[in-house]
């Protein structure tokens, strides 16, 4: 049996691997603009063209009069991937799971426990579908857009422009906004369903104000006026609550959009400056960022769902 070296490779293979990677890195460095500015143009034929990141998504084609942007196609691919993947995983479920089923079960099990930890046993069960859907969509969309082909395949659209065929859905501000609105609607719906009309007193609490008005009319002027100030404060806090819901939608949108777009531009610039190997650590970073953003988006939705359905004073 051959002697095991590091990382499951024997020693000579490892040395060869490191040498090849080092050579790739040096050739990449010398052929990129960073190396060229330091050592001059050595005539290596491996340079890349300067990337031109575009903020608005480009329209690929029109469907029934609606413009279909490349980010929409990216979203469709994510949805199709998730549906097909779920079908393949759950087609032949076994009591003792295979490798694929095991991975997916542990991911969903972890998410389920996370929901139950934050929201409690009963509400965790209720919120899990919403949170898991958002998490899976954001995470898989981020990971799928790291696959080569996303952002590099170009086609000519019916108007005759060169456009990219695919683009990560969350690098277009419309998709994060849609997700944030969906999350907002779910929060309000669950709040209304659990607390009924009382939920709205969070945003418009004029009860104490009218109570003190009644006190003034009944002759208790002093108590009435001090109660009235508290009533005003309650109404003002209600307005602040409503405004902070709006701010939350914007902050959800721009956090996701900013992180995803910045990641994409970072990769483009890294590949442009030093072609080939240099971008590899950034790919790893982007895998992590996709996961963290999905966790934050799903987790914050879960937290706000929990807060919206909590009874006052709980």
């Amino acid at each position: 049996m051959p002697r095991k070296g590091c990382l499951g490779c024997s020693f000579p293979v490892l040395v060869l691997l490191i040498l090849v990677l080092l050579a790739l890195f040096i050739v990449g460095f010398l052929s990129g603009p960073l190396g060229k500015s330091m050592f001059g143009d050595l005539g290596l034929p491996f340079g890349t063209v300067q990337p031109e990141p575009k903020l608005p998504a480009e329209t690929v084609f029109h469907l029934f009069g609606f413009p279909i942007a490349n980010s929409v196609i990216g979203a469709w691919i994510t949805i199709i991937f998730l549906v097909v993947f779920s079908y393949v995983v759950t087609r032949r479920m076994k009591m003792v799971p295979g490798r694929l089923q095991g991975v997916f079960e542990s991911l969903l099990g972890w998410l389920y426990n996370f929901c139950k930890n934050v929201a409690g046993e009963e509400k965790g069960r209720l919120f899990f579908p919403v949170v898991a859907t958002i998490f899976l969509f954001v995470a898989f969309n981020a990971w799928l857009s790291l696959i080569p082909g996303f952002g590099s395949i170009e086609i000519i659209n019916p108007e005759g422009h060169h456009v990219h065929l695919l683009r990560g859905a969350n690098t277009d501000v419309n998709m994060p906004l849609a997700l944030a609105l969906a999350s907002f609607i779910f929060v309000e719906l669950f709040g209304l369903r659990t607390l009924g009309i009382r939920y709205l007193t969070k945003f418009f609490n004029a009860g104490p104000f009218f109570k003190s008005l009644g006190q003034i009319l009944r002759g208790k002027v002093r108590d009435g006026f001090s109660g009235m100030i508290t009533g005003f404060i309650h109404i003002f806090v209600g307005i602040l609550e409503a405004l902070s819901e709006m701010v939350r939608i914007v902050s959800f949108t721009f956090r996701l959009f900013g992180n995803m777009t910045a990641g994409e531009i970072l990769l483009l610039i890294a590949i442009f400056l030093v072609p080939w190997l240099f971008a590899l650590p950034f790919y790893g970073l982007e895998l992590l960022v996709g996961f963290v953003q999905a966790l934050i988006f799903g987790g914050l939705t879960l937290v706000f769902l929990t807060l919206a359905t909590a009874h006052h004073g709980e």
Partner: protein
Amino acid sequence: MSRWVAALRLTGVGFFIGISIVGGVVVGLWVDSKLGTSPVLVIVGLILGVILAVYGVYQMLLPLLVSKRNKEKN
């Protein structure tokens, strides 16, 4: 439970402060340009934005403060 909730809410503190103050100013500027009351409503928007930021941050920090107080009591 509360640790997760507090940690997740804290991720939004920076965004919340920025967006509420900038949002207040932008809305103030917009209404000012419509009504021609410059610069009154920008200042009102700024003040409202700052109040909203302070209120929001207080709400986000509340779970942490409460849990710390409970710990001290125990």
